[in-house]
């Protein structure tokens, strides 16, 4: 047993907790000062017994992103192993931050229909604008297609734009794994069955898992403490696994995330002092996927991120059921809202989901070690 690595990891955990606790009040003051808060005029759910959430700062995820980035840059910067995970997390967090800010300060975006674009492509009096609209046609088609599966947003970054940027983050990650980490990553780890050589197919597999996990964590960030607590459990399991496998860069990196998450969740439990926002959920979702893939345990992701996957699968099933059969499968999706409608209290849902997540992380460790 590499006790030195364990001690190093615990040091990172303790250090990032302390740093994050010191940084948290400054961040909260900053978010209040610039009024980066939930506003009732943009959020129709802030009524009745949720009215108290009006004015709660969003973008609390910055606490984790900044803490992890600073500590890793200063103490755990490894050209081979940590720069890409931190970079990809940064790309996703930037995307999330832009979305959060546009949701608060952005104006309602104009959406031209496909018919309008096709017409403008023919009749606009500037030739270069006509060319521009020609390129806009497939983009609008994609927007319409994605729009069939989600709700229409009037503010912030649109779903199809988010998907494209997440695809880019996944592609960066896949490039790194395929070309930089060595040939052992060209095989997919199969639980109980060793390795399966997949060659270049690992690239779409990685992109898929990165995009899926990123959105899954984003979807699960719907109740005070839910995403934070579940991420603590997932990253703790990952720290343990990295330590058991002797990953000298990833064990401290995961421990750093756990430390920052402890401080974040301390302030995020009900009633939350701030909320994670897309900046945190997209960034941490990407990092979770990357850190599992980087230790070559890709297929462990649905188990180690069980709650996130279940939440996201519930959304997908609900949308499919609504579009195909015109009926609800759950009373509401994501799954935590289903239980809210059924009358479970927020605390009950969050704690039960944490417990399930903890159990599944133990299962993940059991599968991985076996």
């Amino acid at each position, binding site marked *: 047993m590499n006790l030195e690595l364990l001690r190093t990891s615990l040091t990172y955990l303790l250090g990032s907790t302390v740093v994050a606790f010191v940084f948290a009040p400054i961040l909260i003051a900053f978010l209040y000062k610039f009024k980066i808060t939930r506003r009732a005029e943009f959020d*129709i*759910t802030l*009524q*009745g*017994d*949720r009215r108290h959430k009006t004015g709660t700062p969003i973008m609390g995820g910055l606490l984790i992103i900044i803490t992890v980035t600073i500590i890793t840059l200063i103490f755990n910067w490894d050209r081979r192993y940590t720069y890409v995970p931190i970079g990809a997390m940064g790309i996703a967090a930037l995307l999330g931050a832009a979305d959060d800010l546009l949701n608060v300060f952005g104006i309602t975006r104009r959406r031209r229909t496909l018919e309008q674009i096709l017409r403008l492509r023919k009749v606009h009096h500037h030739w270069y604008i006509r060319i521009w609209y020609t390129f806009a046609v497939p983009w609008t088609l994609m927007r319409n297609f994605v729009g*069939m599966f989600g709700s229409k947003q009037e503010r912030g970054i649109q779903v199809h734009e988010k998907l494209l940027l997440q695809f880019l983050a996944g592609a960066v990650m896949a490039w790194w794994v395929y070309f930089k980490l060595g040939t052992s990553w060209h095989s997919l780890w199969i639980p109980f069955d060793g390795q399966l050589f997949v060659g270049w197919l690992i690239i779409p597999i990685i992109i898929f898992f990165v995009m899926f996990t990123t959105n899954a964590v984003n979807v699960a960030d719907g109740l005070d403490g839910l995403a934070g607590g579940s991420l603590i459990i997932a990253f703790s399991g990952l720290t343990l696994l990295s330590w058991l496998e002797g990953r000298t860069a990833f064990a401290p990196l995961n421990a750093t995330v756990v430390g920052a998450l402890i401080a974040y969740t301390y302030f995020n439990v009900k009633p939350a002092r701030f909320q994670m926002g897309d900046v945190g959920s997209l960034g941490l979702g990407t990092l979770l996927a990357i850190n599992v893939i980087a230790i070559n345990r890709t297929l462990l992701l649905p188990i180690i991120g069980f709650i996130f996957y279940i939440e996201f699968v519930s959304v997908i099933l609900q949308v499919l059921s*609504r*579009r*195909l*059969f*015109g*009926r*609800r499968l759950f*009373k*509401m999706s994501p799954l935590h809202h289903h239980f*809210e*409608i*059924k*009358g479970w209290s927020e605390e009950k849902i969050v704690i039960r989901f944490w417990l399930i997540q903890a159990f599944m992380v133990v299962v993940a460790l059991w599968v991985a070690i076996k």
Partner: protein
Amino acid sequence: MLSTGAQKIINNYLNLPFKGLNGVRCPYFNNARLAQRGQLRVLVGKGAPADIVDEAHIISIQYHAGLFEHSGECCLHNKHTGAPVTADDIRQFLIDHNLGIECSGFVTHVLRAHYLETKKIDITKKLFITSPKNMVRWLITTFRPIENIDVRVFANERNSTQIIGKQTGFDYSKVQAGDVIIEIEKTKPFRCNHIILITNNTSGVLDYVHARAWAGEGKYGHGVTEGKIRILHPGKNLWEQEWMEKGLTGEANETFNEARTARILEIRRLKI
């Protein structure tokens, strides 16, 4: 007579099965104006009574309207304002959130229950909606038949036969419960096709029920309603008879006014 299952569906539309509250008549809602595509069945005016009740419960909790408990019980008093909750409040809530039923959706649900009970046939799988030549449309109708059954589907020669009309004559004794009155190709101001379900035919009186909205009833007065057609002139067309609804006849009865404008006004029976 309609089967007990069909009668129960009608009663549920006339008195939606909200727990702890009686007397909420299902409002009328037609998706034509909003034109929502691929939405929940209940949000496009095609929901069964239980679907409408469930959706009202979910929307009330989602938007914190304070009308329902989490168990689905209607609150005696609004959770937020403390005001007593009445059937009118619930109806208003349903209408404000586009929950209701339109004419063909209503008839589909009732006749589906009727034929399931009497002939063990699901009419939504039997009715011809569109040809497989139009592959995409056909696939959509296969997955979501109820949403795609409209008045013209009921009027289609492949699905129903004329009982009362120009071709078959006007022998009203042939009319049975479960037959439908079809109104197609109307003139202004009534543009929508309409379908009415006949529930009984006794001694020259046709009882009917339908989902409709009268302009005179304003924003919150419409919904599923019963009425009668007294056959005063046997052998003559339907618009020569006396239509009575809500105690109103003649020009005051908008259902009658609407029927008069239809180029095709006939009674048909499903070929099942």
